[in-house]
């Protein structure tokens, strides 16, 4: 396709569009994105301190669980929104000549605003619960950035597949439910049997949760083994996503 415009301007406009459309019609606006993790944090803290107390966790449970919820929320929201992004923007695919790959990417990036607010909430709570600020916080942008890279790649694949197979969105919906249990949100990495631990670290959401806890709760830099796995899986996913998208893009028009 012949398009040599300003990618940065295009993506920023698409992000603004997503953002405005999502929040303009809500009276509480952005506060909704803070309410959801707070409610979940409250419920999970109640269940796992009053009903099934988990004594192996040393940190205050509320912050511990929020360290898991924030990455998971971002991942599941960005993944499911990116998956439907092409089909929801059928008008763009069928009627406007533009590079289509920016649609899932800008959808993921628009979700980052939401992520930013939740991370802000998390950091405030970490400090409120007396964990303090440490120099390893500088690792946070790195690990969160890798997460965004991973979701971009995954989002491109799923969005392209959703055009051909509309069942895709339900697959993703179920997968995010399963993921809630397979990511160490309300349990600790040490309670996972050693034979599964290596595999767990390849799941970038799980890796991110573990890294966030190392940084925020234990004031430690994330171990290199974890970082390298996160790095490899994120960039492999991005490259794979790009090529899958390019391949499937050819017949988008016909399937819309």
């Amino acid at each position, binding site marked *: *396709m*012949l*398009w*040599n*415009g*300003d990618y940065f*301007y*295009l993506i*920023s*406009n*698409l992000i*603004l*569009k997503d953002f*405005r*459309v999502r929040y*303009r*019609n809500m009276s509480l606006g952005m506060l909704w994105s803070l309410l959801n993790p707070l409610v979940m944090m409250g419920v999970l803290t109640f269940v796992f301190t009053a009903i099934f107390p988990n004594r192996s966790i040393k940190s205050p449970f509320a912050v511990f669980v929020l360290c898991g919820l924030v990455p998971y929320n971002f991942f599941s929201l960005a993944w499911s929104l990116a998956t439907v992004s092409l089909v929801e923007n059928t*008008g*763009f*695919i*069928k*009627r*406007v*000549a*533009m590079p289509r790959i920016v649609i899932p990417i800008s959808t993921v990036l628009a979700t980052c605003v939401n992520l930013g607010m939740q991370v802000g909430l998390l950091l405030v709570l970490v400090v409120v619960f007396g964990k303090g600020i440490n120099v390893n916080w500088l690792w946070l942008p790195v690990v969160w950035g890798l997460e965004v890279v991973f979701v971009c790649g995954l989002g491109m694949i799923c969005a392209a597949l959703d055009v*051909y*197979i*509309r*069942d895709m969105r339900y697959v993703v919906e179920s997968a995010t439910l399963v993921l809630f249990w397979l990511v160490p949100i309300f349990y600790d990495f040490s309670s996972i049997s050693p034979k599964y631990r290596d595999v767990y670290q390849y799941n970038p959401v799980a890796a991110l949760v573990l890294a966030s806890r190392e940084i925020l709760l234990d004031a430690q830099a994330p171990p290199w083994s974890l970082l390298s796995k996160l790095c490899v899986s994120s960039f492999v996913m991005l490259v794979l996503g790009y090529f899958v998208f390019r391949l499937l893009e*050819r*017949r*988008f*028009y*016909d*399937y819309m």
Partner: protein
Amino acid sequence: MDVIEFAGVSKYFSRHTRKLLRGHLSDLFHRYHRERFYALKNISFRIGRGESVAVIGSNGAGKSTLLSLVAGLSKPDSGQVNVRGRVAALLELGSGFHGDLSGRENVHLNGSILGLSRKRVNELFDEIVDFAGLGEFIDQPLRTYSSGMIMRLAFAVAVNVDPDVLIVDEVLAVGDQSFQTKSFEKIVEFKRAGKTLLCVSHVTSAVQNLCDRGLWLDQGELIMDGASDEVIAAYAGGRPATR
């Protein structure tokens, strides 16, 4: 120099919509029974700089498919499509616009989609709003606009981005008399600047005035290519009963 070149272009669609998993699976097992419907069959033509061409034909003749190939929205299944320069397409009322955004926000969004930089959109902004004649409505959400207002805005953006090829599908009929006159003048000016125009319309009188050349499509085949008044006359006469 040719701006648009079609060489033996064919495009088909599978007859059933295979949008569900079940459809894909059944296709795997019945690979050879897949029915194909040809939207365009072996189409060849060239359009040079400064030409204005009308695509004429009854519903389902393949006009929209042809425009989608020129706009680069879909790819041909065989043959070659070559288009040189920036293409601005007005294919459907308000496509690429969003109802919850204001007119101003939509101009920026649409400008960036058409490949302009932020600086260029800011430069063109007043001209676009002025041409669309929206006045203070520009800061209202698009869903409060009438279809004529949306059309005016879409047309204003498309012609002001200075495309080399302008594609217009049926849409100009929505504007009121004064806007139609205004857009007509803009298109004439556009032609004088040596730009290429490709349009589809059922209002044959408008097409006859704007376009010098006609392409008559029928059931995916190009059955006539010539001066627009001749093609329109032949089309009005009808093709010997084919359907």
